[in-house]
């Protein structure tokens, strides 16, 4: 991904030189229009004259507005907030520089809230880890106009990549929690319901804060699960009887409270929730349990748990960075509800001998929308996060999706509901026009795992094929691009009646003739267009 960086000092040590282009210092007029991503990274200028310094800061906002107008509207502009760690202050009551900096920062925050392609990066999240004399090494400043100390450039690089992942929606989805000495002090089986330490004085107050923090994560779309060696009944009783436990059963999407080995349990949790092991983070105070998971399930993240409860806040801070995203969608917020409803559906399915009867009883409703301002960010998110039922695994941002729409390509978003609840937007199909004007190409076809196993994929595809037929297209071309995770769909298009025309390059290319085929969807699905 080619980046173009607007800067006012030497920053090659921070962003590197491969796939990165730089503006001149303070230059906003030479812009590379082929970049994929634009970044505004200005350091507070080194000026001993405070008035000149303030004037310069005040001019930045106009520069950013100018840049935004110049760059392609489908490309993102990341703007770093300004941080003041090196101004020269002559009067202790003079706050002019502080004011200029904070007014700039609120202006860009407002801009980012209004403009979808402007994103803010809070630079203070990095700088606050250091004292101001660590942030700048004047020797290097005078030798090569480097402002951020080159000795911390590696840490900066790592931090920035995490921020970038957050903006591109890559993140972990689920926490697997231990209980004893993790959510409270002491051991439930030995200390009893009233004997464990939660709330009140130290260390109970530290664990309470940790529980409240986890509840906030859950509100922001993180899935909470429990994997603990305990008697299940003891924990259920605790939830009922101890009023100080804030993190309750309703916050937990799924749990394994038993004496089986944790690797087995975590694997089961991943299956039950239909998420990848690599999207899970294990939080466990027991180093040998963490080691077991590191060896058996290395894709699960296993951060070290603090040795003292008073160190929990630092740990919380590092945990948020695993789950940090730029903003949440409605689907994220409903997730725990949906996962719980899913387990109910599974239980329900066992009641029916005939699978079709079961499907009928679910009263599945499929709503198919074209892309619109309300679902675009969700569509982009699905392309980023869906791995298993994803035929081509193309990753897109909001602006990419907008591009398809603007070019006249077809973007369909699937919403699935049944009697247990609303699954939200859980599928998407993107069809691109081809050079042959009677043909369209399926660029992306994906479904979220949580709605699989009900034949919805076929109903969705057939409905869209019919729409294409009605629009007068004669041919559809489709592709399967194999990845490590999408093997389950390798023969999907064969099953859907497509004809394999080429598989030479490892990818499978298909075609289907719309004219000689009719596409029927089973009446058990209620389709709404």
């Amino acid at each position, binding site marked *: 991904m080619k980046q173009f960086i607007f800067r006012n000092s030497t920053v*090659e*040590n921070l962003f590197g*030189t491969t796939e990165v282009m730089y503006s001149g210092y303070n230059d906003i007029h030479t812009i590379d229009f082929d970049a994929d991503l634009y970044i505004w990274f200005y350091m507070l200028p080194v000026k001993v004259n405070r008035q000149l310094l303030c004037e310069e800061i005040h001019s930045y906002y106009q520069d950013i507005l100018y840049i935004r107008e110049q760059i392609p509207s489908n490309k993102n502009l990341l703007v770093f907030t300004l941080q003041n760690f090196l101004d020269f202050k002559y009067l202790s009551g003079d706050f002019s520089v502080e004011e200029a900096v904070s007014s700039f920062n609120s202006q860009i925050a407002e801009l980012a809230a209004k403009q979808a392609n402007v994103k803010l990066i809070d630079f203070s999240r990095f700088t606050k880890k250091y004292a101001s004399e660590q942030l700048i090494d004047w*020797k*290097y400043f*005078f*030798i*090569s106009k*480097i402002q951020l100390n*080159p*000795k911390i450039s590696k840490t900066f690089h790592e931090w920035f990549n995490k921020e970038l992942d957050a903006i591109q929606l890559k993140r972990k989805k689920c926490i697997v929690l231990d209980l004893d000495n993790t959510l409270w002090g002491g051991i439930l089986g030995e200390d009893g319901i009233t004997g464990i330490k939660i709330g009140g004085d130290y260390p109970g107050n530290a664990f309470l804060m940790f529980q409240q923090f986890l509840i906030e994560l859950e509100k922001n779309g993180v899935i909470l699960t429990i994997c603990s060696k305990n008697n299940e009944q003891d924990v259920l009783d605790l939830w009922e009887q101890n009023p100080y436990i804030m993190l309750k059963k309703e916050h937990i999407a799924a749990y394994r409270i038993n004496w089986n080995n944790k690797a087995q349990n975590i694997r089961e949790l991943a299956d039950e929730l239909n998420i990848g092991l690599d999207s899970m983070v294990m939080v466990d105070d027991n180093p040998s349990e963490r080691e077991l998971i590191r060896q058996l399930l290395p894709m699960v993240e296993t951060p070290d748990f603090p040795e003292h409860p008073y160190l929990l806040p630092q740990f919380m801070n590092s945990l948020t960075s695993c789950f940090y995203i730029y903003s949440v969608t409605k689907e994220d917020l409903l997730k725990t509800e949906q996962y719980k409803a899913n387990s109910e559906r599974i239980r329900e399915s066992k009641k029916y001998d005939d699978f079709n009867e079961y499907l009928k009883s679910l009263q599945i409703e499929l709503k198919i929308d074209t892309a619109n301002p309300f679902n675009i960010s969700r569509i982009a998110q699905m392309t980023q996060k869906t791995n298993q039922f994803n035929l081509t695994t193309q990753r897109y941002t909001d602006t990419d999706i907008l591009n398809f729409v603007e070019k006249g390509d077809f973007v369909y978003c699937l919403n699935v509901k049944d009697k247990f609840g609303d699954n939200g937007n859980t599928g998407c199909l993107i069809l691109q026009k081809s050079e042959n004007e009677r043909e369209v190409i399926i660029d992306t076809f994906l479904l979220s795992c949580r709605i699989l196993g009900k034949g919805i994929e076929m109903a969705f595809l057939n409905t869209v094929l019919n729409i294409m037929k009605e629009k007068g297209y004669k041919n559809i071309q489709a592709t399967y691009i194999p990845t490590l995770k999408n093997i389950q769909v390798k023969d999907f298009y064969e099953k859907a009646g497509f004809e394999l025309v080429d598989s030479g390059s490892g990818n499978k290319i298909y075609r289907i003739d719309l004219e000689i085929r009719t596409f029927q969807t089973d009446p058990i699905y209620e389709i709404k267009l």
Partner: protein
Amino acid sequence: MKDRILKVIKETFELNKVDETVSQKNCEKWDSMNHLNLVIALEEEFDISFEPEEIAEMKNFDDIQKIIEQKVR
């Protein structure tokens, strides 16, 4: 000392092999940004701090070795 310096140069510039003849003139990777990275890596390796004048003087392996020898002595 010689081996430690060469190792730092090799790692900083990501070279396959390196010897005492290496200089800014004959090594493509030795540009101004990598020069700085090299200085920082050497400061860390030998736990020393170079003066700006010294940094400007380090044009080849011999220069580096001379400057470091003076410092660690």
